[in-house]
């Protein structure tokens, strides 16, 4: 499973993307985030406030209960701020 990080989440975790293999019990977005927090102190810190973490599964917005699988591209990022003033 590929996990991508953007903006300050990328900076806090300290990496752009990583290939991970969570245990088989990790089948949802929420479970994946909880598992990612156990990978390092930086992960735990970056992901501690889930209200500012947005998730995309295969480039579509996803919710905590949505499922994730071994071949998915998961992206974690803060609320978007494109466009103009």
């Amino acid at each position, binding site marked *: 499973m590929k996990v991508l990080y953007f*903006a*300050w989440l990328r900076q806090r975790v300290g990496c752009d993307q990583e290939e991970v293999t969570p245990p088989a019990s990790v089948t949802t977005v929420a479970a994946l985030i909880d598992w990612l927090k156990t990978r390092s102190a930086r992960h735990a810190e970056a992901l501690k406030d889930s209200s500012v973490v947005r998730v995309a599964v295969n480039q579509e917005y996803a919710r905590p209960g949505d499922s994730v699988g071994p071949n998915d591209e998961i992206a974690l990022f*803060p609320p978007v*701020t*494109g*466009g103009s003033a």
Partner: protein
Amino acid sequence: MIRVQREDFDVGAEIEALTRDNPAIGGVASFIGLVRDVAGSDRVRAMTLEHYPGMTERQLAAIDEEARRRWPLDATLIIHRFGRLEPGDRIVLVVTASAHRQAALEACAFLIDWLKTKAPFWKNEETPHGARWVAARHEDDAAAARWQKP
């Protein structure tokens, strides 16, 4: 039409190319977003727009499709830049063309409101206090929510 690019764009040429040879078009609405030199009380020297290649194009295409479903549009264009930009630089261009002005105006406002809350871009500002990530604003969610169907 959707474009995500580092390069600047020529507003007049883009509008001309979009509407040329279609005399059914009666109204063309457009919106250009520019980098401002202030954010709150701080000077902004520059900003860098990070994005999620692939998902950006996909989200912009979905927003564009939604606008075309809601309004009778003859042509649409969304260009969003990424990379480092300075005050006065163009960030984004939205153009909508329709037989009637109301459809063009509404669809243009819809597109700019929605891409602000849906397109995966993040702004990092360079201020005298250092670099910082721009926080999402509640007003933007409210602006986008105006377009939610009941």
